[in-house]
């Protein structure tokens, strides 16, 4: 039974939580404001929210002209979506096996897969770098997609496994009795039932891949660089650049922010990696 809460209590809670939430969000809000200012406005009076010289889209245009945003944007999309989809294709059968045909090794296999995530990327940086250099994969979207697929595969398997576990095995057995082949069972029964879980998995992995900033920085140069590397090129200041940096930042994070906000429910589920209910 929920107890009746007074409006006053509720208002106090709202004020405290709202303030803290606003502080967390403030840096993002701030660069959003800066990105519409002129460079002079942006630097002259940092604390001033008002626009002295009116708002402008110049910074966005300048960023596109200076470092070809759309090329990096499409790199990010291809790499994050590509690695997630490939990962999904490998992980769905694996998770099916572990969830519905468990053996005494299942738990060990799962733990082992997760433990490959414990391998620090830097520990294998040198060989991967050399392999990529010698096979011409350096600075290629394909190479990066493969690396990110392997990076996130354990997480995808783990998450799908936890979602599949919630689906009663009897339903799959019913499909088998009804004459469905293994392919039909996975395609027509399991997959549609697991769609919410898969959506969460896909969302989380796109975010992880989109924001991955070790391999993307070390294995790409100009051609295949996604937005993480694109923004890193703004690390050395050149004259008045706050507005341009803000515009570039907003352009780099906006796709994920918008996607995240529109799919909040699935995302919250996904963000807990399926480990907390």
């Amino acid at each position, binding site marked *: 039974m929920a107890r009746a809460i007074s409006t006053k209590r509720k208002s106090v809670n709202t004020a405290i939580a709202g303030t803290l939430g606003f502080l967390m969000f403030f840096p993002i809000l701030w660069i959003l404001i800066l990105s519409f200012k002129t460079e002079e406005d942006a630097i002259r009076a940092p604390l001033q929210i008002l626009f002295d010289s009116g708002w402008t889209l110049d910074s966005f245009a300048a960023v596109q002209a200076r470092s070809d945003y759309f090329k990096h944007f499409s790199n990010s999309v291809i790499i994050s979506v590509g690695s997630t989809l490939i990962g999904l294709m490998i992980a769905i059968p694996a998770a099916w096996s572990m969830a519905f045909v468990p053996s005494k090794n299942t738990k060990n296999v799962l733990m082992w897969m997760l433990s490959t995530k414990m391998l620090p990327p830097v520990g294998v940086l040198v060989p991967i770098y050399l392999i990529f250099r010698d096979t011409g994969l350096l600075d290629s979207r394909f190479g990066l997609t493969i690396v990110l697929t392997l990076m996130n595969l354990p997480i995808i398997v783990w998450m799908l496994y936890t979602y599949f576990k919630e689906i009663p095995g009897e339903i799959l057995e019913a499909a088998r009795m009804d004459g469905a082949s293994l392919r039909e069972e996975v395609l027509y029964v399991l997959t549609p039932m697991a769609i919410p879980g898969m959506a969460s998995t896909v969302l989380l992995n796109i975010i992880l891949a989109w924001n991955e900033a070790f391999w993307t920085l070390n294995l790409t140069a100009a051609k295949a660089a996604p937005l993480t590397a694109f923004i890193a090129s703004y690390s050395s200041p050149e004259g008045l650049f706050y507005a341009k940096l803000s515009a570039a930042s907003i352009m*780099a994070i906006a796709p994920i922010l918008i996607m995240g906000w529109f799919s909040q429910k699935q995302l919250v589920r996904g963000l807990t990696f399926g480990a907390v*209910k």
Partner: protein
Amino acid sequence: MSTKASRSAARLMISPAVILLLMWMIVPLVMTVYFSFLRYNLLSPGATPWAGWDNYYWFFTDPSFKDAIWNTLALVGGILLITVIGGIGFALLLDKPMFGTGVIRIMVIAPFFVMPTVSALVWKNMFFNPVNGIFGNIATSLGFQPIDFFAEIPLLSIIFIVSWMWLPFATLILLTALQSLDQEQLEAAEMDGANWGNRFWFIMLPHLARAITVVILIQTIFLLSVFAEILVTTNGGPGTATTNLTYLIYVSSLLQFDVGMGSAGGVIAIILANIVAIFLMRMIGKNLDA
């Protein structure tokens, strides 16, 4: 609970994932170990003679190694402390009834979507910059000397930036766990005479134990490899003040092109990570029954 046919199908279906991960783990690992025993610099092509334990010796005796270990531990420990305690606080707060829960939750989650390079650059320029940054401006307008964050408290500044990204994550997981707590348990405890502190300590915190484990486990995996935030803010400096193990290895292998030395560092990083991993896996074994 299955037939031979489904068991062999299961083996077939799990093998691509297992084989790929096995390759991803073994091949580079073996190469790293092998390289770590060679005198191998990309700038001096040609022979790569056997170096024995030299690379390890130089890596261990390099003063920056000790700093890097310390910085790595301080980074992981500091961020875990901030995010777990802060996350519990946020979760308790957001669990209370209030208006506009959705909007507030969106604002709190948002930093998790911001890529490391962006958050590092934004904090560095717009907030930490002593002349043009917001913190500097506030300090000046209040009559204080602004702090030059990356010169005076570089490591803390990095901890702060990374915590900003991971605090939402911890909050979300802990909030989800808190919401699954049966309210009747709390009411029963209240009837039994437990005050808020008791209820938090004896009921909420044990209920959160599993979620806290998950937070620590997942964050540690990512935090051991903090890289981009350092690369775009301090480049590991001043001196080695913000060089963690990941960054140190990056410097020796990709900036100084010393493959042997970088690999030796890589092996050490793997061993360290394994020590942490064993410790963590023990914890999960206890707290995760999946």
